[in-house]
């Protein structure tokens, strides 16, 4: 039996088949694990952004017939557009083409889904309250899942400060904004979120927000505020 040619084994692998799609996908996943190990190409995380040129024209925005937001890596090398899936009370959820969703409450990111180390939920002050004040101290708690599906909560002490108005440009629109800087510190982590609020309002036009220790920061452009249908 030892002398049987390996080609028969190879043919067995090639001819593997099933009438059941679930069995097929399970076998492919198993094979994928070995492929990943051998090629050392384990990709731990999906990327919330895809690579394309950073959009900078009104014409680009006009092609969308439904509300969108644009997310970007902090270096602006990768971006993705997310479409609105709808809202549950004040919480608005957007989804990317590869199935990652982001939920916001008045511009503050409160949850991610499908993004590996997801922000499961957030305990936070009402955005309208913090954005309407020039200075506030408050607490935030980020909730994640660990590898055993148990909660891993990180408690932050935050200070929020509103800065002087300034102009920014988003897709050929020049906007006067108030920058709100939120500095949060926990025992192990620190982050600084930045929100550009339409001047004199609590409407977030652009933000840089921290998701989790692994996923870090990303930028959000609330383009739906500039869209015309």
């Amino acid at each position: 039996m030892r002398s049987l040619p390996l080609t028969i084994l190879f043919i067995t692998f090639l001819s593997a088949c099933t009438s059941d799609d679930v069995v097929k996908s399970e076998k492919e996943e198993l094979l994928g694990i070995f492929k990943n190990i051998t090629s050392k190409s384990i990709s731990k995380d999906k990327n919330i952004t895809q690579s394309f040129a950073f959009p900078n024209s009104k014409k680009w925005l006009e092609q969308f017939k439904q509300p969108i937001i644009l997310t970007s890596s902090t270096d602006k090398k990768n971006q993705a557009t997310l479409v609105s899936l709808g809202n549950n009370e004040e919480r608005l959820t957007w989804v990317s083409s590869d199935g990652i969703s982001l939920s916001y409450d008045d511009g503050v990111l409160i949850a991610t889904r499908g993004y590996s180390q997801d922000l499961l939920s957030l305990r936070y002050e009402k955005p309208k309250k913090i954005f309407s004040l020039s200075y506030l101290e408050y607490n935030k708690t980020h909730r994640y899942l660990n590898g055993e599906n148990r909660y891993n909560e990180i408690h932050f002490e935050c200070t929020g400060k509103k800065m002087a108005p300034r102009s920014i440009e988003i897709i050929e629109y020049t906007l006067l904004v108030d920058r709100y800087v939120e500095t949060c510190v926990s025992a192990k982590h620190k982050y600084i979120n930045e929100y550009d609020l339409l001047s004199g309002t609590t409407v977030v036009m652009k933000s840089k927000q921290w998701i989790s220790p692994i996923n870090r920061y990303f930028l959000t452009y609330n383009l739906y505020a500039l869209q015309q249908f």
Partner: protein
Amino acid sequence: MFLRYLVLSGLTVVLFSFELMKPLGANEFEDTASLNMYGMPGMIELPSATNLPDGQISISSSVFGGTIRVNLSFQILENLTGAFRYARIPGGDFNGYTWDRSFDLHYLLNREKSFLPAIAIGVRDFIGTGIYTGEYLVASKSLGSKLNVSAGIGWGRLGEENGFNNVFGSKTRKNINYGTGGTFNFGHLFTGNNSPFFSVSYKINKKMKFISEFSSDSYIRETSSPKGFTRRNDISLGIKYEVDPTFTLIATWMHGDALGLAVNMGINPRNSPYYSGTEPAPMPILQEKYRSKAQKVEREILDESQRLLGLDGIELKTMTLTGGTAKVGIINRKYFNISQMIGRVVRILSLTTPSDIEEFQINIIDFKSNLFLSEIVVKRENFEQNELKFIGPEKLWETVSMRNSKDTFFYDAEDSIERFSFSLYPYIDTSLFDPEDPIRFTVGAELLTKYKFLASTSISGSLRQPIAGTLDDIKRGPKAGLPNVRSDFMHYHRDISSNLFLNYLTLDQYLKPSSNLYALVNIGFLELMHAGVRAEVIWKNNRNPYGFGLDIAQVQKRGTDGGFKLKNEHFNTYLASLYYDLPNDWIIKIDGGRYLAGDFGSTISIRRSFNNGWEFGAYATLTDVPFETWGEGSFDKGITIKAPINWFTGKKSRSYATATIKPITGDGGAKLNLSEQNYLYYRVSEYSNKNILDNWTRVFR
């Protein structure tokens, strides 16, 4: 020698910087640099008072002076480490070597404090032939961020050189009655001479450590064999190189004579590389005003719900809308995590059902048997209100109810029934611990087929074609003393050789006499070695953490060619089982009754079940068969490992890989060799209150 070691250790201290009282940091999940060449916490061969991260599973292998060891270790509890080892030791009947299995335990009594060392106690080779038997008490202390010293006192092998009178007063080492091996040996522990041992490690940089040891192990067996080595002094030196926390290499110079090399690998089920997973986001809950207002008939709602749930990999089979309740029957073939699956079903139903529906009654249908298992009721308003809320899952759980489903079977509509299914894939069959070839295997192709006559009745079979391997070359014969119900397995592999064979072919009938009572009857060629009738009945209330089972079989031995022939050898077995899910991660199963060979006894199985699906367990069967009759190994025992595939991929999948490591296959305590899928309890309890609650954190994932 002791003085020389002290000088050497002192020089080490002088040569490298000395930073006092700064404990070494530890990786949270994996630490393979703390493993020694026995696969246990330690430096080279000696133990140290440390532990591995809770839950870590390590596989390590070491080679030196003719010795080869392969160790499988597990951090059983936060402070308790266990290891199973298979070693080739110089001196013996197999080409001048002995192949030996051994088990170790190591318990960290207290952790290191600012001024106090950590202290651990341990026993080596306490089940087995005792070749490696030894006990120790060891203290370890970090001196600065780079230096760690351990000092201990050892008995048995660790007390052979430099000995002094037993500190507990027991002057002579009590003899171990090894008998046929494989039994627990306790009487000799901490008796006879004891000796000191010392070890030092110095962290050269982030990845590399210099390690040295002063050992009192005389290596009598190894040094008296021409296949072994010469022990020139008490000292071993080495370098540990931590490639990353999951992979460490050790190079050593053993006792002034032999080069050694070890590879340590570790994985921690608690450390999922994908955290909360990368499955696509679920459908969000929409405010009522955004939902479709079009009046739809029930059929349209069913179709729409089926389509959307299908996108999530969930099969919606039945739906009725009555009195404010949407009652659905679903088959889950994708989600290992039941709570997450429930969340996704509720999201879709919230979107598709009319707004007068107030609650969703979700009935889970088992794919294989069509049995209705559990019924989970979720209030629509509570789900919608708690989505994206910080403590939403906790608040929602307060309003969720569940019980065993009252329905019996799901009956497919004639036009949609998928009666026939098949799959053709490679298979691998292994046999371990044959001294002539420790890893034997056969790879081949397996054709699995199933034909469903009725909802609860099917015929299923497995045809295998071996292609290459060594299982047909086992030289050992079956055990004597008992009817050969299992230990003659090699005759089957030998006679089948490279021929096509029938692995199993059974008619399976499922029954559900009441909502908590389930039964399965298998008739036919049950497994490679036995054919006959087998019936299993289980009682399981999914709201309770326990259940009961009864497994009865009347079988006849199959011919060794894997065909349809039967031998004139008849056996029967009946086993009663108690299952108990402890409040923590542990699951206990106790079986009692008559085993295949006619022996009476009991099996205790215990396994640590991680909340993400990983399981690591052990079992032992003791029956009225004397150890001498059972033969080498004395009784049936083993280690079980189960690894969910979604842990490795981050995607939704219910498949998993399993492995059972049995040191010896005997006839006493033998059961039918059926896959876990043939035991109803695990299929029912998967949808239990405990399992759903433990994973309720994912209901909004």
